[in-house]
């Protein structure tokens, strides 16, 4: 336990060093997980995304439900309510702009399709999401993610790497004479590496570094994140 906290503090110290760069962002989140039945997992998360200097760029609360329909396949539903600094406060005189996101996805544990207890876990996730904003166009996005992690059942530490691609189905919207033209396009890549630490059956943390490469602008971001997760019925 003490070693774990030591490493966390060490990592957070490094964040403040990298935080001098304007493209360094910090994400912090806490989540509660509940498994009403063996195959169903419900997770509620509160997340803060901080820009350089500790200014809140986004804050959100989300609910995820994941259900394993059979061994290697898991489906999920997602909702997120988030708030951003309002860029159009001249219109509604509100400090924050709200957004709602709904999503659904499917995740496939690739190696477990053929192997009973593979040493490595390779998971592929396909997710659709639609997010509506008060003064921005809706974002309709298809996400594809692949994650690789070792299956260290008795280790408290679990490293992982993942890459995720975002394709926005309504990336471009413009009028051509009397016709509204909507076209899709690649929006973003997220390359993440991190490590999870399990304190016990109920509590775990995850530290990660993520590189967000945007296809629509040059404002790429390096993100350092910390997530704390508490599992209510941790004995399951």
């Amino acid at each position, binding site marked *: 336990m003490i070693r774990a906290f030591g490493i966390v503090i060490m990592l957070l110290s490094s964040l403040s060093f990298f935080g001098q760069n304007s493209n360094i962002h910090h994400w912090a989140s806490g989540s*509660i997980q*509940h498994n*009403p039945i063996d195959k169903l997992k*419900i997770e*509620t998360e509160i997340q803060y995304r901080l820009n350089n200097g500790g200014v809140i760029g986004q804050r959100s*609360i*989300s*609910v995820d439900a994941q259900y394993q329909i059979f061994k290697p396949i898991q489906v999920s539903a997602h*909702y*997120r*309510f988030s708030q951003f600094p309002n860029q*159009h406060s*001249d*219109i*509604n005189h509100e400090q924050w702009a*709200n*957004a*709602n996101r709904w999503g659904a996805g499917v995740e496939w544990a690739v190696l477990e399709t053929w192997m009973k207890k593979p040493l490595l876990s390779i998971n592929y996730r396909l997710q659709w999401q639609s997010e*509506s*904003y*008060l*003064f*921005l*166009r809706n974002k309709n996005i298809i996400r594809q993610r692949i994650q690789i992690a070792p299956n260290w059942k008795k280790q408290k530490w679990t490293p992982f790497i993942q890459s995720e691609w975002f394709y926005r189905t309504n990336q471009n*919207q*413009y*009028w051509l004479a*009397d016709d*509204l033209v909507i076209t899709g396009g690649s929006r973003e890549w997220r390359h993440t590496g991190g490590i999870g630490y399990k304190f016990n059956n109920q509590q775990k943390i995850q530290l990660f570094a993520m590189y967000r490469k945007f296809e629509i602008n040059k404002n790429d971001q390096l993100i350092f994140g910390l997530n704390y997760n508490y599992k*209510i*019925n941790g004995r399951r």
Partner: protein
Amino acid sequence: MKKIIFFSSILALTFSMSSCEKMAGPGGSSLIRGHVNGSNQHTGKSEIVQITVTRGIELEHGDYFILNQANGSNFYFWFNNTTWVSDGDPHLMGRTGVPIIFTYNDADTTIARKVNDAILSVMSNSFDTQLNGDMVILTSKAHVAIPDPDDVTTSFLIDVSQQGQADDMDAPSVLPDEKVYLVYGDGEYYNESTRTGGTGDFQFENLQIGKYKVYVLSMDSVTGNMTQKIEQSVEITKDESIQELSTFNIVY
């Protein structure tokens, strides 16, 4: 603990319901477009006439000069020395004669005052006058072109220092590169603006359902500045729709 999850979900859904309200502004899929025509207004000039008079000793009984008006009602002003028994009126055809009684002892400033009074007595609707020593300065009240005056038999100096010119307005034509303003809802200040293209057309894209006001600026007829709002209101009632505005006709 199940209750925590349950209430968290309810909380999230409550946020969801409270934040779904849409209002006029960006972030939609509708379009407002229109067209701007403009007429170029050339502002005319008043005619300014300067009459420099002489002393009474330099005038003779029967000397006269002529002044004209834009409406064609013209005058001649003749000098009448009452010590003379002969008729000094030149009796010009097509003009109205106005006598100015003088003596040989009159100073030039006295002659200037008498000329000023005589002009005001018949032409005050057409000219404003100003006395400046031996000068009478006439300024036409309207922007008009007036046939030139003449000193004829007097020794006065009569100059047209500014030729009158009528106001003029071109026929309306498409107005490129004109700024057009968009106001969301019932706001007082504009939220975004655009400019007309080469054909005088403009459009505002990505708008949500709601009420909007669009305006362009035209020349104020009193001040001559581009400050008069020409405004139209429009309401977008459904997504992915086009709202066509009437043509804006402005004066610049």
